[in-house]
């Protein structure tokens, strides 16, 4: 089967959906099978954060890959991947609010306001919320394509905040190797868009 054909296969979406749930399934299994090490709370907090960043990279890689590999059907998966990014960031936030703050919302609010690194991560989470909420066809229609696109440009801000959050979390330990890897991936994905934009001739009155 040719790649383009495989991507259009009716099973493609369910298969991707199941794949995206694998990290979550592993974490749930890990909790009950006691496989998350001596400090499961820390494991869950870090792992859900890692997966958020990974899904953000994967989501933002869809368009460059689609264009470069000339695989238009890839576009079908972008929304689902974006929503999984949101799924993992919600889990990440819940882990923090639950395991660290014991669902004490007053304390949680105080903690977020007090700690820049948490504030930045929380801001990224908040900003991602309208993007997730407007991912449905009806929302796209209601907003109109232009406004929808403008709103979804927020993802660039979100990516920056996410990296800053991770950078700050690691800053105390000067342990930036992984931060740089994610920053480089996101930088390439965003840089590709910038270059493409600059190269695309501005639409206007055509010269004869």
């Amino acid at each position, binding site marked *: 089967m040719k790649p383009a054909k495989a991507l259009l296969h009716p099973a493609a979406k369910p298969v991707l959906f199941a794949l995206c749930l694998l990290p979550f399934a592993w974490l749930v299994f890990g909790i009950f099978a006691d496989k998350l*090490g*001596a*400090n499961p709370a820390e494991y869950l907090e870090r792992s859900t954060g890692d997966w958020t960043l990974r899904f953000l990279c994967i989501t933002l890689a869809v368009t460059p890959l689609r264009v470069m590999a000339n695989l238009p059907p890839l576009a079908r998966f972008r929304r689902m991947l974006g929503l999984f990014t949101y799924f993992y960031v919600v889990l990440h936030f819940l882990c923090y609010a639950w395991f*660290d703050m014991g669902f004490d919302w007053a304390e949680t609010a105080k903690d977020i306001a*007090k*700690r820049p690194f948490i504030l930045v991560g929380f801001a990224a989470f908040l900003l991602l919320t309208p993007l997730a909420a407007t991912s449905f066809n009806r929302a796209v229609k209601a907003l109109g394509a232009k406004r929808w696109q403008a709103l979804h440009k927020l993802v660039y801000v979100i990516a920056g905040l996410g990296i800053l959050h991770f950078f700050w979390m690691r800053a105390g330990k000067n342990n930036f190797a992984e931060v740089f890897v994610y920053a480089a991936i996101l930088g390439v994905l965003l840089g590709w868009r910038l270059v493409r934009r600059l190269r695309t001739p501005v639409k206007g009155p055509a010269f004869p």
Partner: protein
Amino acid sequence: LPGAKSTVAGATTMEKITEYKDATSYNNFYEFGTGKEDPAQNAHTLKTKPWTVEVEGLVKKPAKYTLEDLLKLSPQEERIYRLRCVEGWSMVIPWVGYSMSKLIEKVEPQGNAKFVEFVTLADKATMPYVGSRVLDWPYVEGLRMDEAMHPLTLLSFGMYGEVLPNQNGAPVRLVVPWKYGFKSAKSLVKIRFTDKEPRTAWNKAASHEYGFYSNVNPNVDHPRWSQATERRIGEDGLFAKKRKTLMFNGYEQQVGQLYAGMDLKKNY
């Protein structure tokens, strides 16, 4: 490595002892990697025989001790201490060793010795992450003289009745139960007496986050997280509320007077 019951006040908590498996698989020992599981996986390369500890600086009797000398220097005691990591988790560990003061008395510090610096092994050949940019190597820790002389400050050679596993700082380490865990330097090779406050590894790496004193203090937050509570490893379940952190990790009665009149917010 057997140890007799200690008679030092506060040296034997009755709390539930952390499982050996957790205490030996969840470690911070950056010479062997920054992940918590890394030391248990990588520390097998550490060579603990032969081992010497050099005592130098402002002392009347500087000396190079072999590990065998140190083991015999004073009777081994079992001390069951709480261990509170600066990251917000804690354990209860039965250490084997003797008060650091026993060694200090032997080497007779000079009158102008105000601090003790603890230098740990930094051997690129056996410690794969020495040379990584995370910290300035070797890992150096320090105590004020009165802190080092406090009977609770332990020179430790074993835990759970055995010699120290490599990942826990073999063959000889420091244990200071009322301070965050990183103050308890592992795999010691040099003990230096000085008149100046030592520049410690974490303080050099991030001075606004890790002070020289680093006493366990629920009222002084780490800039990136609260220190008011902690999670006891293996005991406080995932969904249990975290337990309250105690002033000086519960050793206030024993060590509080060392800091009388000090502003602990400034001297964090």
